[in-house]
């Protein structure tokens, strides 16, 4: 059976550096940091008091107040972002077979704020009023509800679910959407990811794992992947959304095409709950899987949007894996971590970084890894590689590879390339 080709025809991004994809793209090319003091709650007693929050977001600008009240913030992000992508793709939904349009939306955690509020409320009132929970507690909190809500809003009856693999979640969503479409099971899929975990349980939980940077006095420079002085990741929030569409379907309606989805990969470290394999075994495997799936060779890739979270162990093992997989070609391509600007969007990271990769391919420019200072070099990292430090770089980008790795040892990888007939 011949697999169908899949292209990207719509984009949406709701991020700490821009609430639409053009704004996001403009700001990551400029090297803007999305970090600042946490505003979602009083973080003054927490070890980490800053994060990359979405700015100026009001769900009621887009959705009915009554509906908004029944959605966790992560679902609000997911829907508003999906709306941007669906409008951007220019599809006339009245002419479409909605049974063949699906929604696959990755989420790392889900409605942690809803969970936190409801459990606190329960703990405070169980002695006086007994075991009472709000009827919207479960449907607001569960990780699949964003995909469900988007389908309800648009009447999409195609495949509909969430993918959960921590910080690889939305790369897995893109991979699953790709497979459904190339197998001919759907004409288009709204594929994305969302997360809103910058709340007490999220920050406190990651703090307890020593996963977050504590550079409270210099938030904007805290996310510094591949620098010796890096001290953990910076939490981000938001959503990313791609409209993936079967090529002939896209051509028939005269859609604009951003790029072609060339291949995807998935693997596991099978090593530790949270630490990445020191030799980058799972990372190496996932990149090889994706290259093989795309039918591409290491020399075909011009840009790697790394997982690169700015943690001491993870950055080193990913670089090792890149050198192992790409050999001499590793020195010819550009590498960058857009998390240096957006922070780590957890379940939304894969979608947002796939968008950065797609726009790099489309526009022949690589966004930078910001916050590297001259001489701040880690002896375990090879600086002959081009990390695109501090300034975006113009170059031909034929194809880009986006890595995401999640707690649990999940790895997922997406390759996009220029669309050529």
């Amino acid at each position, binding site marked *: 059976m011949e697999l169908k080709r899949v292209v990207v025809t719509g984009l949406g991004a709701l991020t700490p550096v821009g609430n639409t994809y053009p704004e996001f793209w403009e700001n990551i090319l400029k090297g803007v940091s999305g970090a600042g003091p946490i505003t979602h709650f009083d973080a003054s007693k927490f070890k980490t008091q800053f994060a990359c929050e979405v700015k100026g977001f009001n769900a009621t600008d887009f959705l009915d107040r*009554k509906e908004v009240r029944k959605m966790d913030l992560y679902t609000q992000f997911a829907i508003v972002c999906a709306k941007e992508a669906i409008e951007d793709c220019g599809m006339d939904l009245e002419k479409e077979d909605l049974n063949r349009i699906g929604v696959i939306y990755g989420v790392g955690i889900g409605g942690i704020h809803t969970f936190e509020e409801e459990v606190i409320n329960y703990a405070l009132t169980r002695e006086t*009023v007994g075991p009472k929970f709000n*009827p*919207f507690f479960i449907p607001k909190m569960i990780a699949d509800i964003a995909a469900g809500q988007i389908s309800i809003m648009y009447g999409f009856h195609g495949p509909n679910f969430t993918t959960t693999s921590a910080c690889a979640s939305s790369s897995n969503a893109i991979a699953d959407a790709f497979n459904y479409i190339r197998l001919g099971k759907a004409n288009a899929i709204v594929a994305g990811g969302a997360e809103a975990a910058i709340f007490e349980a999220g920050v406190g939980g990651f703090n307890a794992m020593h996963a977050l940077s504590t550079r409270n006095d210099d938030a904007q420079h805290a996310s510094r992947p591949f620098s010796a002085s890096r001290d953990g990741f910076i939490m981000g929030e938001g959503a990313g959304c791609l409209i993936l569409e079967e090529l002939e379907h896209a051509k028939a309606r005269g859609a604009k095409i951003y790029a072609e989805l060339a291949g995807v990969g998935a693997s596991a470290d099978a090593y530790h709950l949270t630490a990445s394999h020191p030799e980058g075994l799972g990372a190496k495997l996932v990149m090889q899987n994706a290259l093989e799936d795309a039918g591409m060779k290491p020399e075909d890739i011009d840009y790697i949007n790394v997982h690169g979270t700015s943690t001491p162990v993870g950055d080193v093992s990913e670089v090792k894996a890149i050198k192992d997989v790409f050999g001499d070609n590793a020195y010819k391509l550009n590498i960058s971590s857009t998390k240096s600007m957006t922070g780590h969007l957890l379940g939304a990271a894969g979608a947002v970084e796939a968008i950065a990769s797609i726009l790099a391919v489309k526009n022949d420019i690589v966004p930078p890894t910001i916050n590297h200072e001259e001489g701040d070099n880690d002896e375990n990292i090879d600086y002959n590689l081009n990390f695109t430090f501090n300034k975006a770089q113009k170059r031909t980008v034929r194809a880009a590879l986006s890595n995401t790795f999640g707690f649990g040892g999940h790895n997922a990888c997406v390759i996009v390339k220029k669309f050529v007939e």
Partner: protein
Amino acid sequence: MSEIASRVKAIIVDKLGVEESEVTNEASFTNDLGADSLDTVELIMEFEKEFSISIPDDQAEKIATVGDAVSYIEANAK
């Protein structure tokens, strides 16, 4: 309008996102005010919280209109 009635109506306006003028005594939560089964459960919980009462499930099932809610609460609130 009694004080209880105005508090009940304020909760309904807030939770169901409807106009105050729609919240008449005869208005049915599901037929007139757009509530689904989950909204109705939430409303009952909000009444319990607001008036510090407990509404047993078999009683809650009988509360279908704004007027039903007001009468029940007026009879049972401390």
